[in-house]
């Protein structure tokens, strides 16, 4: 699994272009999330793709060839945080509810809705953690589930920000030191 973060123009059709590209490259997407950034003209995508490192390199380079993609970067090998959010509706009656609640607590999930026959758990975390909770809940009967797909961010000072005229100029300046010795 490879994780690519991209900043794209926040306008209609961009998601379609990205999806169309992955289809053309025959790369299967596991999850793709899009959300706004602090700049309303720019959206941030997290693309999790079933491919190897060289497939990811090609996807990353091909993404940047799209006019509306400002930057795409494979962060799979970098120190990063990944989060997925899930809402899970589990069958629960009066008898097993306390037991169920205990389990959910262990996974740091929150019960956000309780009905006579079911309850809804909200849980966020890594994919593994959510999968782990699911495993435990399955014997009770998982009635419905919604997951957001992953978002990811590199840790610490490793910043991945949308490019601006100023940041590009600064990067260019840094490079204009004699190219080849």
């Amino acid at each position, binding site marked *: 699994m490879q994780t690519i973060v991209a900043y794209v123009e926040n306008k209609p059709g961009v998601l379609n272009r990205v999806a169309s590209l992955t289809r053309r490259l025959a790369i299967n997407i596991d999850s793709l999330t899009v959300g706004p950034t602090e700049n309303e003209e720019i959206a941030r995508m997290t693309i999790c793709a079933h491919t190897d490192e060289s497939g990811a390199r090609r996807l990353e380079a091909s993404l940047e060839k799209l*006019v509306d993609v*400002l930057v795409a970067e494979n962060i799979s090998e970098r120190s990063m945080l990944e989060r997925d959010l899930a809402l899970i509706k589990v069958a629960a009656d009066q008898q097993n509810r306390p037991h169920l609640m205990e389990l959910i607590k262990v996974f740091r999930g929150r019960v956000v809705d309780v009905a006579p026959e079911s309850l809804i758990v909200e849980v966020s975390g890594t994919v593994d953690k959510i999968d782990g909770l699911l495993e435990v809940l399955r014997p009770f009967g998982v009635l419905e589930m919604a997951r957001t797909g992953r978002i990811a961010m590199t840790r610490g000072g490793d910043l991945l920000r949308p490019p601006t005229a100023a*940041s*590009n100029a600064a990067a260019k300046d840094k490079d204009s030191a004699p190219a*080849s010795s």
Partner: protein
Amino acid sequence: MKLTGAQILCETLERLGVRDIFGYPGGAILPVYDAIGKSKLHHVLVRHEQGATHMADGYARASGGVGVAMATSGPGATNMVTGIATAMLDSSPVVCITGQVSSKLLGSDAFQEVDITGITMPITKHNVVVSRVEDIARTIREAFIIANSGRPGPVLVDITKDAQQATADFVWDATTPQLPPKRYRNNHDQKEFDRAVELLNSAKRPVILAGRGIVLSGAMGTFEKFVRTSDIPVAMTLLGIGCFPATDPMNLGMMGMHGEAWVNTAIQEADLLIAVGMRFDDRVTGDLRTYARNARKIHIEVDRAEINKNVKVDAAIVGDAGETLANLLPHIHERDHSAWMAHIKELKGDSAVRDIQTLPDSGHLYAAHVINDLWKVTKGGAIVVTDVGQHQMWEAQYYHHDAPRTLITSGGLGTMGFALPAAIGAKFAKPESEVWVVVGDGGFQMTSCELATIVQEKIKINIAIINNGYLGMVRQWQEFFYDKRYVATPLVAPDFAALANAFGIRGERVTGRKEVVPAIESARDSDQAVLLDFRVEQEDSVYPMVPAGAALHEMIRRPNNPLVETASEP
């Protein structure tokens, strides 16, 4: 000054230096046509919108500038699809402008409405719908920049009818392109660069693989210096032909599926390959597992996405071919690879001394002779435009191009029907040049309607149909790989000379070898378009041939008897 969107479009195209537009009118683009009538733009009426895109493509390939094609919405736009994909695969800068139904009708399945930006998304470098008159000029300017920068490619701009009709203030300076602020990438990687230099300076059996990127970069001069300094022989991709003179002793010729045996053998024996502006297409490499196993590989390529795509390389330099070669030049030592060159000459064996021109006339007419004669008579100076198939490969083998942009052919997509319209486009780009269409009898019938365009535009091009009564390359595959079961390849054609006459073009049938040169000469002498129908040997095949998926050195060689085709020495 208040102008309509249609007028703004024409004004913008004029300011961008456009002279000729290839197109076909219709309801959703009518406002633009009305404005074209009042502009300085010259509109070439095609007979099918596929022809318009191929003409714009041929125009772009011959000139190095951007070609412009125009069509109406719906079927007009969808007819462009093959031409757009052709331009995409061969990195050709084409801007397609299509009319679209009015913005309030979008999504309503209105008459002649089609989602052309959706359809062409994977086959354009970029595409965009414009539904506001204020966006027309800026978008067209952006389209021209995108089409002809970096690795060029087609851009489609779909303009709604209401945007064409609406009026707006037109101030050129207020329509500056505003492309998204891409992250600046420094592609210079000193480690890769140093490794490339080291490999170049230590190789004993190096071969340069020269591709179209050299032509697109305009790097012919730098490339020649590079070849001279490093003393490395050059093998060409089909689209690279012309980036280095075919008559230069350092030029080995075309590589790949129908490359000469010594070229492919040299690549397989090489200890270093320097790929410049090419993408290791499967037609060039054959089986990847056995491809150039002894060779280290350097890849110089403007498109980062091509690096390590098909062939893993030892040193990759991402960048413009000309700039990269210029950067490398001061670091490479003057080398002498004469021993390696002598070995390659040995590989040529007797094919190097046989000349098809000296073969006795067996009473048969062979395509190789026709094309080699065309080369001799035109002194290699014509722009030759080909389709795809046997005639295309024979052209690449027997017409020796010394100058860039003189072979225009559909390489990546392999589009039948490309040659005739692309040649019309090339003629508009280079009115002073001699332009020849070399085309098969199958492909010619796909777009032969454009003969009418030639007549209406009164342009002079010559057409050589290599007529063997078969879809020749497919027949050849059936002969080699399907036990000669010629399913759906025998091809009935009209009398092409009579067909030409019906269009008002002089046509002539040529059946004997002695008639070839006089026919070519008389076509050249005429100041009007001439069509020559060369009735060549029907079951002739292109040799050598690397079967699809076979190793590059596992070639089917030319049969010795009849000794009809041998390599021709430039």
